[in-house]
């Protein structure tokens, strides 16, 4: 195997912009400062959003948020709310929002190639009128993240077309992955049968709410 440089060279943004050429005029027109009827319809059909937040120093992370389509509530055309479902309790997003309120979201709808992007600023709430709208299986979340929307736009479908994300044949990729039990056994360095770990993790997945 030929060894290539482990640290690729860095180029400046002006160099990037020169090489890319000017943006298509359509693009800037796509940006809206609110949730219009189309964005609202997209969110109502979306069971999955990727949410990026960053800490005060700009260290960023991105986490998936998923539930039934429309689990993210549109409170008005400038405000949306995401339920905080039980997860790993690491609370990275909460800590980040406390230091830096910037939030970036990508919404996905199965079968739709375009992605809805929503950017704004967020905070945590426990407002009962918001949480009651997120009740599932007789349980409601403890918290929700409110995002005050600054911009929304439909991202073109090329990434999803190239990725064949919604092509059922793409599911065969899962066969090439080690089981989560194998990954956990290796990463935690535990001397445990991966099949048992797998069972343990699977049983954890049964408690979804």
């Amino acid at each position, binding site marked *: 195997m030929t060894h290539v440089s482990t640290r690729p060279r860095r180029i400046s943004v002006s160099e990037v912009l020169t090489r890319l050429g000017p943006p298509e005029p359509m693009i800037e027109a796509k940006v809206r400062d609110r949730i219009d009827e189309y964005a*609202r*319809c997209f969110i*109502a*059909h979306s*069971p999955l959003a990727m949410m990026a937040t960053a800490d005060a120093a700009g260290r960023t992370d991105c986490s998936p948020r998923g539930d*039934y*389509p*429309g*689990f993210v509530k549109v409170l008005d055309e400038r405000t949306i709310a995401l339920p905080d479902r039980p997860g790993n309790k690491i609370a990275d997003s909460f800590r980040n929002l406390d230091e830096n309120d910037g939030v970036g979201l990508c919404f996905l709808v199965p079968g739709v190639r375009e992605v809805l992007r929503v950017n704004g600023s967020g905070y945590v709430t426990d407002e009962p*009128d918001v949480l*009651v*709208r*997120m*009740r*599932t*299986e*007789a349980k409601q979340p403890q918290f929700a993240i409110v995002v005050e929307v600054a911009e929304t736009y439909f991202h073109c479908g090329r990434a999803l077309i190239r990725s064949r994300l919604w092509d059922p044949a793409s599911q065969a990729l899962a066969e090439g992955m080690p089981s989560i039990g194998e990954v956990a056994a290796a990463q935690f360095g535990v001397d445990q049968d991966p099949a048992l770990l797998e069972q343990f993790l699977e049983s954890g997945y*049964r408690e979804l709410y």
Partner: protein
Amino acid sequence: MQQTIVEHLDRLTEDVLALTLRATGEELAPWEPGAHIDLSVPNWLTRQYSLCGDPADRDAYRIAVRYDPLSRGGSEYLHRFLRPGRTLNVSLPRNHFPLAPAPRYLFLAGGIGITPLLPMMRAAATAALPATLLYVGPSADTMPFAGELRRSHGDRVRIVETGRQGRPDLDALAATLEPDTLVYCCGPAGMLAAAEAAFPAERLHAERFQPAARTFGPDTAFEAVCARSASTVAVPAGVSLLDALSHAGHPLPAGCREGVCGSCDVAVLDGSPEHRDDIGAPQGHMYPCVSRALSPRLVLDL
């Protein structure tokens, strides 16, 4: 499950939408006044709606949906995003609110609670039985079917607009009631409570949209034995019997998951269930979404 297609969407008032669901194949399953269906909303939620059309029309079901500003996504989806031509799956009709034979009826409707009473009123009229309807809402323009009811049934329908007239005096109404009258009430919790206070329990049939606020003892762990497969399922405190069964490979249909729809009905062969539902499971049955066990062990027909 029955497949239907959304034929019409009619806005009856500012926040009530009527759906006409036409059969895509054979006739739809028959139903009696008081019946409801589970509607599979395209966003994976299941919601219960009373059938309010004509039971003789076997080609279509009609339901009316009020928009709930605190919607979890059911009424919001139907109001904002449903379009004619969309395919919707509905359950077979179930009836927890059947019209029992009686020489005369009093129907009490609060707001969207009019829907199950509408076919009851028509059935009583067709059978030439004396029936009156007291229909209560903030103002006539917010009350679906108010005009249609007045046209069809004349002064047997009394519309009470609480915004102008205040709440009706149910005690006064009860005092003048013929003793053989059966009272059917569907409406918000406050109205049901007033009806329960005013009318004798054996004369009153009530249907609620939401679970009644009640308290139960703390959840305890118990065992469910699935008789047909001879397997035993542990049900820990904090996990519903429905979820425990489903995780153990005995999935049951689940609609409301809060004890008001009856879709998860299961027969109990032995043991004492602790019924926590709002509709009253038939003798020997229980609704495992909310109900638990008083005995350490339940034997289920599964």
